[in-house]
């Protein structure tokens, strides 16, 4: 409770979170309540914005605004799920490496560094290319699986510094097992940190989805912000000046990730007093 209060004392956190939740909950509510089908072809190729379709239509003659709302929902869900996955894998690997130390750490750490240095973009592309079918779920998995190293690295550093804390020795003297210690003595201390990492990973997930979709490796038969961009490029929205086909998606991606970054930075300032002004 107290932590939450401190958290909300940061304008950045409040602002970022509000924007994010507004977009996320808004898009979920809209898609749940509205009967508007985003794939309904209501107009022609790139009809300019009008009263009826405030953001015009896309290459399929679909209402861009409705698509955008669905796209935001999908992208955010992909981002959050990939974020959860990446955070989960990274936290497990990082905690084990950092806490266990010795050769386990060496092995896991070299693995992490290897994955860090090899552009995750490359792995992402290779994985996505080799998928038979790219459902939303699989794409999310692929993004999550390729982005854990950052988490692992960050968590490892935390865990290995926590390892030397005296309450860990104390817990050992209480006869707690290593697993128990990891869960009760190490993890809770990293929670805020892990949450921050999760926020960043989610933002990364959204960006990755967009990047993959741009390459034509995005989820099939789904509307996401990246897919919208990919269509706009495919159908020459830029050349024909149909800004409404790409700008709203670009802007939404930027705003969502911006809001997440703000939350992260705000949290960082709260939890690391050195950044506090």
């Amino acid at each position: 409770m107290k932590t939450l209060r401190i958290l909300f004392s940061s304008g950045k956190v409040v602002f970022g979170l509000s924007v994010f939740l507004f977009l996320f909950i808004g898009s979920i509510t809209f898609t749940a309540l509205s009967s508007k089908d985003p794939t309904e072809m209501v107009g022609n190729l790139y009809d300019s914005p009008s009263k009826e379709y405030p953001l015009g239509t896309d290459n399929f003659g679909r209402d861009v605004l409705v698509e955008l709302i669905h796209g935001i929902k999908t992208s955010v869900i992909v981002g959050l799920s990939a974020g959860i996955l990446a955070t989960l894998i990274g936290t497990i690997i990082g905690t084990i490496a950092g806490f266990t130390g010795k050769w386990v750490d060496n092995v896991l750490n070299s693995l992490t560094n290897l994955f860090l240095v090899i552009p995750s973009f490359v792995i992402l592309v290779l994985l996505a290319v080799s998928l038979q079918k790219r459902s939303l779920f699989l794409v999310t998995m692929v993004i999550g699986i390729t982005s854990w190293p950052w988490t692992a690295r960050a968590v490892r550093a935390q865990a290995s510094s926590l390892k030397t804390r005296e309450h860990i020795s104390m817990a050992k003297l209480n006869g707690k097992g290593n697993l128990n210690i990891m869960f009760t003595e190490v993890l809770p201390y990293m929670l805020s940190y892990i949450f921050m990492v999760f926020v960043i990973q989610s933002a990364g997930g959204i960006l990755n989805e967009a990047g993959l979709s741009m390459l034509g490796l995005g989820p099939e038969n789904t509307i996401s912000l990246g897919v919208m961009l990919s269509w706009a490029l495919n159908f020459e929205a830029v050349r024909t000046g149909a800004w409404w086909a790409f700008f709203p998606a670009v802007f939404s991606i930027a705003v969502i990730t911006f809001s997440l970054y703000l939350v992260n930075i705000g949290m960082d300032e709260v939890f690391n007093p050195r950044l506090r002004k």
Partner: protein
Amino acid sequence: MNYKNQIIRKLFLLVVVSTIIIFSTFSSILADVEDISRSETLYFNGIQWGPPTNFNFLTGNAAWPVPGSGGMWNEAVYETLFLYNMITGELEPFIGKGYKWVDEYTLQVELRDDVHWQDGEPFTADDVVYTFDIAKKYPLVNSGFWLYVDKISAIGKYAFSIELKKDNPNRLALVNNLVDVSILPKHIWTKIEEQSGYDIKKIREYKNENPVGSGPYKVYYYSSEKIIAQRYDNYWGKNLFGKLPTPKYLVHPIFKSNDAGNLAFEKGDVDVGQQFVPQIWKMWEKGLPVGTWYKKEPYYVPVGTPCIWFNFKRHPLDVPEVRRAIAYCIDYKKIAELAMTKYSPTVVSSLILPFGPEKKYYDEETVKKYGWEYNPQKAIEILQGIGAKKGKDDVWVLKDGTRLGPIKVECPYGWSDWQVSLEIVSKSAQKIGIDLVTYFPDQAVAADNRYSGNFDITMMTPAGNPLPSQPWSRFYEVMYAKDIRPIGELAFRNFGRYSNPRADELLDEIPKLTDEVKMKELYTELAKIYLQDIPAIPVEYRPWMFYQYNTTHWTNFPSEENPYAPPQMCITGAGIKALYEIKPVK
């Protein structure tokens, strides 16, 4: 020394070293040809995608201007015997002065005697015979020739004859070869064959960077960014056309995306293009000097008809009423307007196009009687007629309990206009309660699915080229079932494994005919079978090439109002005549 200076010095060093590396790597791509003048150069787009890999006609994917890229023949370097005119459907004399059927099985062609290769060697009937003979020796794109030809032989230096097989005398397919097979110089290719040890693999690896043909242009320069052809001023065609082609250079820049190519076209950097430009009329509405064949819709000359193909081995698509219901529920007009941005007239339920050279075989009665059109109510009635009921989720269920869906309609990802078409198909069907869902796998997957029969409904254009053999070729691809491999094995036509013995008979019979009346009769019967069985549904028309021109630098391009040449990109078949008539603006 101060540490700050140290950093700056190190960074400076880094920048210098990287600059050197970068510039030295760059120098490797610099060439030693001269820049070319805009007023002497005609720019193309839309034919060559990706960097030139070879100029070897035998690879099947030779780069522009050698035939092979994008399935287009052209006459710039290598030439065909006759010039096909897609508007009139005629074979115009070229190297071949004329052809005649000596008897039912024998075709004789007479050649010009003043044709020579770009290295000065004379062009003779031997070259022609050689060109067809190697297609017998090796698996080549035009090896199909030998399925119906028994023998090709020279008659003296400037004539040759072709004898059809008695059991498969396909006259229609044979004539195709007169317009779409580029003749190779025997004296050069025998050497290449010899060097390659008569191994087709080695022959295919031969890049032929300096192709020697009989045409008016030679490859001058190429890189992964562009290909330049330079005029061959000693061209034999001076005799035929009375002059040389006007542009000294033909350039095909290689655009990395459709967008880039279209932007260049819009700016006038490209003079004549065949890329899909959505809503091209907006360009002249903006005041740009851009034109297409027709001034009005559909702007382009429709030649092919992309279809959705049913898989006959999958239930419930094997039920004719289901196929018919689908045929009725599709909003063809919307496809023409939205997916084809009005570049297609609303499609008619026929594999014989109701316009162009094949119009003579089109029988409106049959289409009216057995065909279909957009009529969702009718689709519902058809389904009700076979006792189908709507399920709870508003989707039809057949008597045997089969739900109509989900049925996948697929085409490759990124084939954007088709994707839009299929979106409309699926939306149309869903509206009346047939659950068609779109599926856009990657191209290779889609192709694999298509050939191996692993699909519900797929999209493909049957025989999309303007050829003398149409509409037979189109029917053949859609309906001919003889020798078609079962599901799981590859079939490069009749993907849905449709089969009707009578259709096979008709398809065997038609190409043998010489009598036009009889031919129309059989075509009509074939059309009736087609309309009853519905192996595939045409969803839109498509031009062979999206011929469009920008008159910023060159004028007098052929068009409907000035139809001195067909809309064949100035270099293909009879389209080549345009090269002699266009005029530089300056």
